[in-house]
């Protein structure tokens, strides 16, 4: 069944480095463990057996931002919390991506209020937005697949940490 059947006679696999790196990055997007509101529970449900985010290589929720690649902003971002969220984003090493999960993280949602940030894209760059209140786990998985497709189109020198 496995790859060994095809590669049993010392074969050579040829690819270019961009495709190879993007293939590796897109299939091991490790999210940062943090949640802000009810969307975080859907995020947890996504990692459980029925939805099984491990199928996409993203089951390793990292408690330290130093080891994470993806920030899932799951929930309402209040202005008081925005300081910490921005700090966590800055602690994640490049390459890093951001998913704004749910209506609150994308636009502020129902909280048209003095205390809520009207969309996390006001403080950090966002790659994928998920609508819904809260989005179902399928929506998070769809966003993850969208992000994988996006990573596969990236050029290696287009990331901000790469010197020109």
């Amino acid at each position: 069944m496995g790859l060994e059947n095809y590669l049993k006679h010392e074969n050579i696999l040829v690819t270019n480095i961009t495709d190879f790196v993007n293939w590796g990055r897109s299939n091991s997007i490790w999210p940062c463990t943090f949640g802000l509101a009810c969307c975080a529970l859907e995020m947890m449900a996504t990692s459980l057996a029925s939805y099984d985010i491990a199928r996409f290589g993203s089951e390793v929720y990292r408690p330290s931002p130093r080891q994470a690649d993806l920030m899932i902003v799951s929930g309402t971002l209040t202005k008081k919390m925005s300081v910490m969220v921005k700090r966590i984003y800055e602690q994640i090493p490049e390459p890093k991506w951001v998913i704004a999960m749910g209506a609150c993280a994308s636009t502020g949602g129902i909280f048209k209020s003095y205390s809520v940030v009207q969309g996390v894209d006001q403080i950090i760059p966002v790659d994928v937005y998920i609508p819904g209140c809260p989005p179902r786990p399928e929506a998070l998985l769809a966003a993850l697949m969208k992000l994988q497709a996006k990573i596969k189109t990236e050029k290696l020198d287009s990331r901000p940490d790469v010197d020109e």
Partner: protein
Amino acid sequence: MIVEKINKSLPGLIEDQIWFRDELQIYVKKELFISFMKHLRYNEDFKFDLLLDVAGIDRFSIKPRFELVYILYSLEYNMRLIVKLKVDISDIVPSMTIFWKSANWPEREVYDLLGIKFSNHPDLRRILTWDNFEGHPLRKDFPLQGPDFNEKFNPDSIKVY
């Protein structure tokens, strides 16, 4: 029953009393508030040893503008009492932390959201909003969306801790 007890030991303190859902609410006079609360806390007839919550109400356009609500409970006698105090915008209310330690954070919350100041409070800082927040959001004349809703939000403008 409690009203008679209070009237017997401290006559003329209760301005008004309301029975609502089997709970007694009493309005007390501002001048004697602190001695009254001390009496409720330590007197053998009451022993209200638990302060469950301190809340504030903004009755905008009515004078005096604010009401403070102290929810007391006596473990000894299993009674509940809601003490209400009318305060105006410039009044400074004595802090109840001297009698109940649990008044600390609720009074900070009332100060944060309604702007009622407490004297002799050990740590009267904002508790829910951030340190350099301007205004008091639960006041009826506070704009719900805040003064700078249409401007782009800058997290550096938030001072926390």
